[in-house]
């Protein structure tokens, strides 16, 4: 099949009619504290000002299994494969019940993180890349995928500014990379950045330097988005 005409990465959702939707799917990916949400918020403001209907979404916001995920994370009682599948379930629920209906209705869907965060998170925990690729083959291909790149050093300071402390999960403490949280954070975030970069080519990311000023990053985002919606 012609790569450019594909609407899903893999098997897709075979029981749905393969329609072309009026809406557009725009994804912003990046580490926690990379400025994703700020950029998504600003983009939404601007798009609405321009007269577009926007629906924003993120990962782990569906009601289907998010309770189980939170419960499990608190007690750290789930196996890696189970947690991967729970996140995938949650994402699929949002894709089918929120994203696709909105696209069908002509909305611009702004996704603050998509399957890539999940794939990265699983890959650094040892999941087989081919398994992940096929598992998430039900995901619709975004019209644009931005990746806010940041070095672990900068992320560290952003974490301090935003939260005051280092977070257990964001430091990848469950991986036992180091018993020292500072060291673990650094190694974990470096591993994640590596994985994102590996996905960047295969999944056609528009990579942006997240360390630049908020306004500058936003300007670049808008340039790309303008080009997309004027098509």
């Amino acid at each position: 099949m012609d790569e450019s005409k594909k609407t899903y990465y893999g098997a897709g959702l075979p029981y749905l009619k393969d329609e072309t939707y009026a809406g557009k799917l725009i994804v912003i990916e990046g580490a926690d504290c990379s400025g994703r949400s700020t950029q998504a918020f600003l983009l939404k403001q601007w798009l609405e000002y321009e007269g577009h209907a926007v629906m924003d979404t993120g990962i782990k916001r569906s009601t289907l299994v998010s309770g189980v995920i939170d419960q499990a994370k608190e007690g750290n009682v789930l196996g890696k494969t189970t947690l991967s599948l729970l996140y995938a379930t949650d994402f699929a629920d949002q894709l089918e019940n929120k994203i696709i209906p909105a696209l069908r209705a002509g909305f611009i869907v702004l996704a603050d993180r998509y399957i890539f965060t999940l794939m990265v998170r699983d890959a650094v925990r040892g999941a087989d890349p081919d398994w992940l690729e096929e598992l998430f083959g039900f995901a619709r291909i975004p019209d644009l995928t931005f990746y806010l790149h940041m070095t672990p050093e900068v992320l560290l300071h952003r974490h301090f500014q935003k939260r005051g402390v280092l977070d257990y999960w964001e430091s990848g403490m469950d991986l036992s990379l180091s018993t020292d949280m500072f060291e673990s954070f650094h190694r974990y975030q470096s591993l994640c950045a590596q994985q994102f970069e590996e996905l960047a080519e295969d999944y056609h990311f528009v990579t942006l330097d997240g360390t630049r000023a908020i306004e500058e990053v936003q300007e670049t985002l808008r340039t790309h988005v303008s080009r997309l919606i004027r098509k």
Partner: protein
Amino acid sequence: MRLKKARGLGRSMHYPGRLFIVEGNDGSGKSTQIYLLKRWLEDRGYPVFFTEWNSSELIKSANKKAKKKNLLTPTTFSLIHACDFADRYEKMMLPYLRAGYIVLADRYVYTAYARDMARGCDPDWVKNMYGFAVKPTVSFYFQTPLAVSLDRILSGRPQLKYHEAGLDLGLSTDPIESFKLFQGKIKDHYDAMIDEEHFTVVDATKPIEEQQRIVREIVEKHLTDYELPYHLTTR
């Protein structure tokens, strides 16, 4: 794009235990058979661990809620059952196998294959998802003509739940009629898997005792070189 690796069920993982699983339509009598097998193995002193489909404590509540509200699509239905399986697999089945137990499973990944395919999921996608699971020592498939298994179910338990009846497939609005059509599809998928998945087919129309005799005979063959876990031999 990355080249796809050839894959099949089960990584090349070596474990000292044994895994016997039963599959078949609702009403095929497989649960009775695995119960009798369990009794026999336990009486003979084997360390047995038994697990059944859809029984993970953690996932149960989410699953129940979702089903009650009919919130599930074929993809999320498939995924949520994979979560349940993975939870039981990672916490119980695999550790027990690695510790040398005889693990008995009432339904395994093939139940998901058959049901998810019947619901319209992509077969390769479903198989990939369960690619983390080891291949059983023996997979017993209790095969019955559709009329027989339907009669066993419908004569005894006429209250069918929404997904159980396959009402989400939109085959019929009548639960009984829908159940029949759904079970027919599932049987077709099971039958089609026999060779590829190396099922050991048991004729489930035979008397219970005879089926059990066949099952025990086959299981026994796979236990000739079985070694009891060291710490259990010194009891």
